Each structure stands twice: as C-alpha cells, then as structure tokens.
C-alpha cells in the first residue's frame, strides 16, 4: 500500500482524503455495509472509526476525513468523537496492544507488579510503542474478568491469572512473531488491524475457536451439579426437576426503595435528601423551568 501525503484542508475544499481510488472505493463499500445496519447513518461512525484503524493502524487524519465525507459531517465533529473513546488511537499503534489491568482489584492481586515488570522488560511506559512497532503498552481499566485477576488484555483478548513472568513471556513471543493463544478467546491473538476490522462488525469466522468458559466462570455450575442443587423445575417439563423448591434467600421486611421512573442511576433514585420538601420544591421548579 502506498501512503500518500495527507492533504490539508483549505477554503472551499472539503474532506479530500489521501486514499488512492481503489482503497477509497473498498473502504466506501465497507462503510456502506456498516451504514446499512442502522436506521440513521450517523450511528455508523463508531464502527467506521474501527474500520479506519483496520486500514491505517490508528485514526489517521485521512481516515477522519473519509468518515466525515461519507457521513456528511465536519472533520471536527468526527475528531470530537474519535478523541472521546480510549480504543481509538491518535498515533500509529503497535501490532499488539498489551493492556495490564491496574484498576483496584487486579492491582491489589498483582497487577501493579505485572505493570512494573513489563514496563522494565520492554523499556516503555503507558501509551508507548516498542521500537520494532510490535507492542503498544497500556494500563487498562476493569475489563470484566475480575474472577481471573490479575488480568492482561492483548488486542482485547483475555489473558487470565497472569504473573510478571507469564506476561514477559507473552510479549517476547509476540515480538518474535510466534502465534500466542489467549486464555479465553480465539486460538491465537489477531493483529491490531485484524481485530479492529472485527470491531467494525466484519466477522472473521473465528467465533467457534476457544473455550466457552474458564474454570472460575463455571465454578457455581459445577458445584451445583456436585451437590444436586437445582433451580425449581419448569412446570410441565420433563427432567431438571428438583424437590428443592424452597430455594429462597433470606427474607426481608423492608419496603423497596425503587428509583424514580425508569431511573438507571446506580444509587437509589430517591434518597432522603431528594425526599425532603425543599428538594421536592427545587425539583419541581427545575421541571417547570424546562417546560418553558
């Protein structure tokens, strides 16, 4: 692929991109397929930015211009979105993003030690890439695998129950070009560009690779089977029946304090403060103001 210099935007000239015609046509066909998934075309922007990363290895200026042109947006509007999300890279990314979870639980269980070790091992820090362009190192936030802590993600595949040594081994093998298998995921980690294309919604046919669950995921399932603990049987269905119909938890006499209508707040939507008459009046005044 030839990389042409990116043309700057001048007055009267909008969104010229530096993709050659063949590349541009191919990307446009992919973009059309993405747009077709949604009732409104702007919804295609996030997957299209993943598509740009699949092409260029980061959200390039020409990729931003391409998205803007295709969706009838300004490049500023596209950039505003691209800079909001941590998975969009603003400079060329390594072939593999290695993300060490240093949120509280993983950090305490050893994630901080892994982070120190892999930084020393690679000689780079957060959001930096090795000289050979193979590894971009990141601290990541909770990736929803806390029962496998400490967790490391490589191109968004799970590497569970890691140690400083195991991660050093993984990055060494990645740099030497060996296929590396995640703990739960595809048979081998795909490249950053390949994974970006999947995230744009283009199936790579690898869904049936790998396990369905690791050991912690099925601990409850296995324990229940060993003890013949079951959920109540579905009425009128054969099998799966259980005499244990009294699987009730501890009772409670407290009245529920449900949130307000359709609240998804992760706290009771009505707190003692909200329920005070002063708060009620303030809230009503606020609502009245919005009605006008």
């Amino acid at each position, binding site marked *: 692929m030839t990389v042409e210099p990116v043309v700057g935007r001048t007055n009267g000239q909008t969104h010229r991109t530096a993709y050659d015609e063949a590349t541009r046509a191919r990307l446009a066909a992919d973009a059309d397929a993405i747009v077709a998934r949604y009732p409104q075309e702007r919804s295609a922007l996030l997957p299209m930015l993943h598509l740009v990363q699949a092409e260029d290895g980061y959200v390039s200026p020409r990729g931003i211009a391409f998205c803007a042109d295709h969706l009838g947006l300004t490049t500023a509007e596209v950039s505003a979105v691209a800079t909001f999300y941590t998975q969009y890279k603003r400079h060329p990314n390594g072939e593999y993003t290695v993300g060490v979870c240093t949120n509280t639980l993983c950090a305490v269980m050893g994630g901080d030690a892994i982070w120190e070790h892999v930084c020393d091992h690679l000689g780079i820090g957060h959001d930096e890439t090795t000289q050979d362009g193979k590894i971009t190192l990141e601290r990541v936030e*909770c990736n929803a695998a806390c029962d496998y802590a400490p967790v490391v993600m490589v191109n968004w595949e799970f590497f569970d129950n890691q140690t400083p040594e195991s991660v050093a081994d993984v990055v060494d093998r990645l740099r030497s070009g060996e296929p590396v298998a995640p703990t739960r995921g595809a048979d081998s980690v795909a490249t950053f560009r390949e994974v970006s294309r999947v995230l744009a919604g283009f199936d790579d046919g690898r869904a049936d690779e790998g396990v369905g669950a690791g050991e912690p995921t099925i601990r409850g399932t296995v324990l229940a089977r060993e003890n013949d603990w079951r959920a109540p049987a579905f009425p009128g269905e054969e099998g799966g029946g259980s005499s244990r119909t009294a699987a009730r938890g501890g009772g409670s006499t407290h009245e529920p304090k449900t949130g307000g209508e359709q609240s998804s707040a992760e706290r009771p939507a009505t707190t003692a403060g909200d329920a005070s008459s002063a708060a009620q009046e303030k809230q009503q005044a606020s609502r009245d103001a919005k009605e006008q």
Partner: protein
Amino acid sequence: MGTTLTPVLSDRWDAEQSWKLSTYEQGGGYRGLRRALGMQAADVVTMVKDSGLRGRGGAGFPTGMKWGFLPAPDGGPRYLVVNADESEPGTCKDIPLMLASPQDLIEGVIITSYAIGCHHAFVYVRGEVVHVYRRLLAAVAEARAAGYVGTDILGSGFDLEITVHAGAGAYICGEETALLDSLEGLRGQPRLKPPFPAVAGLYARPTVVNNVESIASVPGILRGGADWFKQMGTERSTGHGLFSLSGHVTRPGQYEAPLGITLRELLDMAGGVREGHELKFWTPGGSSTPIFTAEHLDVPLDYESVGAAGSMLGTRALQIFDETTSVVRAVTRWTEFYKHESCGKCTPCREGTFWLAQVLQRIERGQGTPQDIDLLLDLCDNILGRAFCALGDGATSPITSAVKYFREEFEAGCHTPADVLFPPERSALFDYRPRSGAALAGVHA
C-alpha cells in the same frame, strides 16, 4: 446450609460448545419464545411484571414496569437497546454470560422486542472484548438461519432485526442515555432526563434500555411462568442472579443463586477467604456501591436488605479484600478510575473527581494534612446528588464508606505511606519484590 445455588442462566456453561444454538436448544432454548409468540404482547409484559424481575444492571428498577412506560404505539419505530457495556469495576457477569451462552440473551431480545413492539433491536457491547463480540455476531447469524430473527419469525408474522454494535472504550457509556448518544455516533455523554428513554430514547423514539442479565432472564420467565421465577429469591427481590466473587477468596467465580443469599453462604461455597487470612472489606455490587466489612456477612443480598444496611445491591460484584489490603490504596485507585472516566459534561464530577484524586494520592503517599479527611468528605458532599449522572455519585461511595469504617487508615496517611503500612506484596497472589521507593500512587495522574 440454608440457601443453595439455582443455576438457570449458568446451567449449561460447562457444556461442549456451550455457545452454539444447538447446545442451547438441547437445553430447552427457544421454548420461551414459542410460548411468547402464542400470547398477546401485552400479556408478555404482564407476565414479566408479575414475575417481579428487577433490573440486573445495578439500579434494580422493575423490568416489566419499564416496558410498560412506553407510550401507546403511534405507528413509528420503537427500540430495544441492550446495555452490554459491562465496565463497573468488579463486575464480571454479563461478559462471561455472553461468551459462554449468548443465545440466552438473543432469545430474551426477541421476546422483549415482541412484547414492546420493537422491530429493530440493538446490543451495545463494550469494544474491549473482541471474542464476546464474535460470539454475539455468530449467535445472531445462527438465530437468523434458524428463523428466530428476520421476517415472519416462526410463522408469527413478527419481524425483527438485531444489530450488535461494538463500543470503543468508555465506562460512561454504561449510563443508559450516554449509551444512546454513543449508539447515535456521538460522544458518549449523558442526557438530561426527562425526557426518559421510554418517551424519547434512540433517535428520539420510545426506547427500552435493559441490562444483559435482565434480558437473558426473560426466556426462563416465559418458559416457567411468573410463579416459577418467584419461587426463588425474596418477596421483593425475586428470582435468580449471578453473584461474582473475586479477590482474596479461595475459589473466585460466578455463583448463580436466589437473591437474598448472604456473603457468608457464598464464601462457604467458594472455600472462604484465602487461606491464613481474614475478610477486611468488600463491595456488594461494584466499586460504586459503599463498601461493607465483616459485620455485614449476614446481610441478605437483596435490594432492600443491602439498601437498609447502607449500600446497594448494584451488580452483585463481590470484591473481597483481606487484612493485607490498604483501604487507602484501594479507594485511591478507584477514584483515579472515576477521574479518568468522567465524561467532563458537568462540573461537580469533572472537577470534583480530579480534586478527590489529588487529595487521596497525597494521603496514600503519607503526605496528607490533618484537614484532608474533612476536605474529602466536603468534596464528596459537593458531588453527591449534584452531578449530571450516577458516575459522580458512584465516585463518592467508596470514599465516604471507607472513611466511615477505616478512618484511622486515612489519618495514618498524614505521616506514613500506605505501602509501608500495608506492603503490597502481601496482597498479591504471587511472590515479588516491589520496586523500592517507587510508589504507584498517581499512576493515572
């Protein structure tokens, strides 16, 4: 032993190729959909209301009631959006569910769409789990090939498209209106409510936003009936739920049990706190729920009891920390997370989380001042209830609760670094020698 496990969603997770449609159908999958399609849509809503199912994403709002809030059909589109953006620290139930058995979710999506009159449903999954995304795409394709998705589903005349959409890394998109903005191709920032999504949600059309586990619980309710579901759990917190044990516990993992089980019962099943150690503090439902201590081991884990004890059931993300753990270090790291994930839309959260992190970082370094605890609490008071969405509120929960139970550790931060009081290598699962003098305090700065 009192309460025992009730695997419903997790029942087939250990099966060979558990994620395939054939495995799911062998276990009775799609019987719920067949039953639903033979009912009036309104009766499906009533059945879910009667089951008492409440939102499994944290807030616990009654699911059927949420569906019932949609205005009467006006001929225009109505949408179902599944919140699969699981990112709350400690929460790890929806991601393994979708990896092991995505069809539970897909069947739930189809039934729910039928119930609310939706013909195009969306699953918004966080982008940082590529194999889960692959499994979801494949699950929709398999369901389509079997006639469960598309036009005239199972000869019912009901049509449905499902789009699985990958996010791009932003915790705030777990907030339902931020998720809708993100799905519309915008920065994921929360919207002012009202209007609520039921009235003006995706593309300003009536929209239901539900958590993965909530929707995945719907097929079982259709299959077994409301009374079947209510055989599990408590009177006000009915049904089964995934309890995720992590941290300093002998056998961490997913344990599906009736709501109202206690941590003591769950810890018994999981082999207890790691050998030679004892429980110090834990979260009942992720980092945004106020922490508990050993005195709360017997609190029934249902919405009401956890609330009455001063916290929230949240996502049943039970993060267990033993006596080696510095509560100051734990809370500082969570605060750095909220600071990093604050979307910047409202001032109390944007500024407040930065201030909180700075104060906590100096306490962690042993350089706090005697006024810092009061300063922290004052900052929390200025964020709680004043932020645009629940992220700001959540950021204050670990701080205020930790000061309540472990004030002396914060006071010690005026003269002694947290990693001197609690050497971090004692908390880790493996032996290592920490870098001397290089405290990680402020790694997110």
